[in-house]
């Protein structure tokens, strides 16, 4: 992959992207949908705008990863 490909990937925008405010508003719901489903496919189907945002926004994706770990049930 060339630098131009990387640049192109960075510049791509998804019109479904809901932005940080809306994604963070329901992040706890999205996280539980991912935990319920394991693969995250159902969460992505129900909240495509949040999924699109998390693929594009590093800080929100970081918060998502952190919340996913925090909310994961402790192993018995």
């Amino acid at each position: 992959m060339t630098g131009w490909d990387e640049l192109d990937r960075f510049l791509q925008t998804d019109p479904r992207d809901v932005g940080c405010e809306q994604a963070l508003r329901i992040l706890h719901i999205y996280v539980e949908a991912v935990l319920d489903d394991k693969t995250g496919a159902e969460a992505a189907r129900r909240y495509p705008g949040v999924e699109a945002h998390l693929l594009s926004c590093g800080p929100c994706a970081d918060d998502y990863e952190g919340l996913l770990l925090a909310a994961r049930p402790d192993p018995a």
Partner: protein
Amino acid sequence: MRSPDEQTAQWLAALGGSGSAREQAVERLHELLLRVARAELGRRAGRHSITGPELDDLAYQSADDALLAITTKLGEFRGESRFTTWAYKFVVLEVSSKLGRHFWQRPAVTLGTADWERLPDRFGVSPADHAERQDLIAAVRRAVEQELTERQRQVFVAIVVDGIPLDALVARLGASRNSLYKMMFDARRKLRAALAANGYLTASAEEAAPDHIMRGER
């Protein structure tokens, strides 16, 4: 709204009550928030240089501020998740915000240096590939100067050229993460269209189609 699970119902009853039961619930919640804050700061350890007592102080500050926000906004909890998942979101966001502010305590960090020679590194172009580096710098710099507003240019250069994290820029400019993200979103779209129009990138269907086709007109 779904019925709350048993633990969520217990949290809501205790925190919404009074006396020693509430105090114990607040104390227990603070312990959980502190544990999450410490874990989150540890998970992000490669991206900050905070250690020792200062790190633990940041964890306590995050837990304290999250606890205050949670108890203040308890009435806004709508039972769409477990209570703890909702509550943990506050402390994760506090950690992000505090790390953003802390970024500026690094002595070497300044805003507005705009060293364009570093741009190719952000996109993995080898230092040996001199021609590609110079082409990429020239094309992007020209598009930034011609296509973006002054504010978009400032934010794009800070994040992409200078490598300032978005949350650090949020702290410095006093803006919201959402507003800066949207500014970057618009900037990315404009730059991509300009680079495609000049033959550097392949035009997307939307960029390639005449306006009347995109509007569904004949």
